[in-house]
């Protein structure tokens, strides 16, 4: 049962049931990905991306409640990340090159991924089999990123929602799009020398 329900908050989507094969695929993908990120296996992580990946993290702003809900709390014109494969690869090369001082000593991170909700995504042309090659699955998740460095600083947290598109390519399932909705307007982290 996937569909929409209408409540006082407007349209609210219902996700696929948790025993749907697409949900199982998506959930598995996100957990494996988090394990790679926490192990700093950046190059393996890059292999999970489609060549046309778009990776966004808009800046959130504090706006009044009567602001246009479509832009609510998001700074439409500024991002923390607006990446493609080239820039993500450069970031990974930097982090693994031995001279990225801000990650030396490295952060100890834990990507806690939860609230996973999967949705069917239309494709053009439509794929006959919902999990066959060419299929796309949309998945939302909540992320709490714990980050600790050294021994004299308090740990940092980043809380965010993520909306991803996973595409079934001939090499397997790949991340084709990610948009990260961070829950703070002013980040309380020294930098984003990490991936979410």
């Amino acid at each position, binding site marked *: 049962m996937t569909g929409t329900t209408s409540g006082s908050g407007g349209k609210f989507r219902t996700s696929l049931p948790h025993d749907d094969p697409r949900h199982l695929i998506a959930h598995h993908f996100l957990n494996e990905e988090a394990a790679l990120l926490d192990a700093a296996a950046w190059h393996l992580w890059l292999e999970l991306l489609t060549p046309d990946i778009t990776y966004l*993290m808009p*800046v959130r*702003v*504090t*706006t*009044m409640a009567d*602001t246009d809900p479509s832009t609510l709390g998001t*700074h439409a*014109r*500024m*991002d*923390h*990340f*607006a*990446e493609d494969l*080239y*820039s993500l690869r*450069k*970031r990974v*090369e*930097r982090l693994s*090159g031995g*001279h*990225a*001082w*801000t990650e030396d000593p490295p952060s100890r991170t834990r990507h806690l991924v939860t609230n996973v909700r999967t949705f069917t995504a239309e494709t053009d042309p439509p794929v006959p089999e919902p999990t066959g090659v060419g299929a796309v699955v949309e998945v939302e998740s909540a992320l709490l990123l714990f980050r600790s460095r050294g021994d*004299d*600083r308090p740990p940092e947290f980043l809380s965010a929602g993520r909306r991803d598109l996973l595409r079934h390519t001939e090499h397997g399932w790949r991340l084709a799009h990610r948009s990260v909705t961070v829950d703070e*307007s*002013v*980040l*309380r*982290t*020294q*930098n*984003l*020398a990490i991936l979410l």
Partner: protein
Amino acid sequence: MRPGPAEEISAAIADGMIPAHVYGDPEVFELERRNLFPRTWVFLGHTSEIPHPGDFVLRRIVDDSFIVTRDDTGRIGVHLNMCLHRGMQVCRAEMGNTRMFRCPYHAWSYRNDGSLAGLPFHDEAYGGEEGLSRDRHRLVAPARVETYNGLMFAAVEDPGISLEDFLGDFRFYLDLYTAQSESGLELRGPQRWRVNANWKIGCENFVGDMYHTPYTHRSVVDIGLFREPKAHKRKEGVLYHCGVGGGTTYKLPPGDFTERMRYVGYPDIMIDRMAALWSEPQRRMVGDDGFMVSAATLFPNLSLVHNWPIVREGEDVVPFISLRQWHPVSATETEVLSWFAVDAEAPDDFKADSYKAYLMCFGSSGMFEQDDIENWVSITTAAAGSMAHRLQLNSRMGLLHDGGQVGRPLDDFPGPGFARVGYGEFNQRNWLQMWSRHLFPPGAGDTTGRDTGGER
């Protein structure tokens, strides 16, 4: 009588030494909060952030919150975000568009020019105009608000000098960033994040620290973000300092003005506009001498940066500009506000690529910025320790024991102020001397912000 902290700091700095505790000492922060920030011109934002009547952004000077508005007639105004009745913050959004700010406590309402529009039960509670005359009430404003090239500044107390005079000849350099066409800049952002670093360290880094580039930023050179491995070429650039600002430059390969602007990635249509708008000495600095502006700081806490990375595999470089403010939160915490800035008349595809260049290099995720701030956090942690009161940091680069200098200022540099090729901490010392003069209470030091007797 034992000299106070301001006297001790000034004396050390005059000798090129920095008492280490100034980067982590709450007592020094209190002097800055009381004596420096209210009494000089402080950057608040850019007019392109509030382009339409009713637009506003919320900005702070240390711990005071100000509403920066464009009123219904299009005028820029700055008002303290504090209700005249019982002190509630009348604006809780950091940006938006409104004709009226209504206080949530008892509903006094203020127009977007700060004037009091109305209050509930005016007659019954106050006896109408006889008890409280509305047109004599408006939100508190800083003593002065002025703009230059769209950059909006406020001075909480009158610094006794106009913004233009304060900027003085530093405008020569500021224009290179902020006036690339008649339309000036448009800003995107800011990204905001808080770091456990003292605000002064960023100011000093951007004003003149070319010396850190080869090592701190080694990783971005390693990954081929630039056309040439240029970190070690940093010492061929010129350091310039002029009144309230100073900065660093890169030396470009041979060529004329157009060729050198192309080298850093500007399209011809933008180059033509700059050639038409800039003065002959401004063009000469780039075209004849080959010095391209890089990082800069305007006293007290606004920095600028200009760089040109590769944004797509196998393609040429694209330049970007960022404005950034090191907003002081405490002695050991700074909120960084980092804007992407681009010439408003630039072609759309240039704007898109330049934005990408910015995100890769600076801001919350920027690959340069990450390693810079790592250093600054570490310094601040050490400076907050008690031993920091016994240590004076060596900021004497370029000075000899006998009072002589390593190298000397260029005498044929096209820009105002003084300039010299190569590494040196002349600019940092000038910035620090200006800063230390502002630690004194009114009347006890030179507080006009003018660089009256800086080092050359």
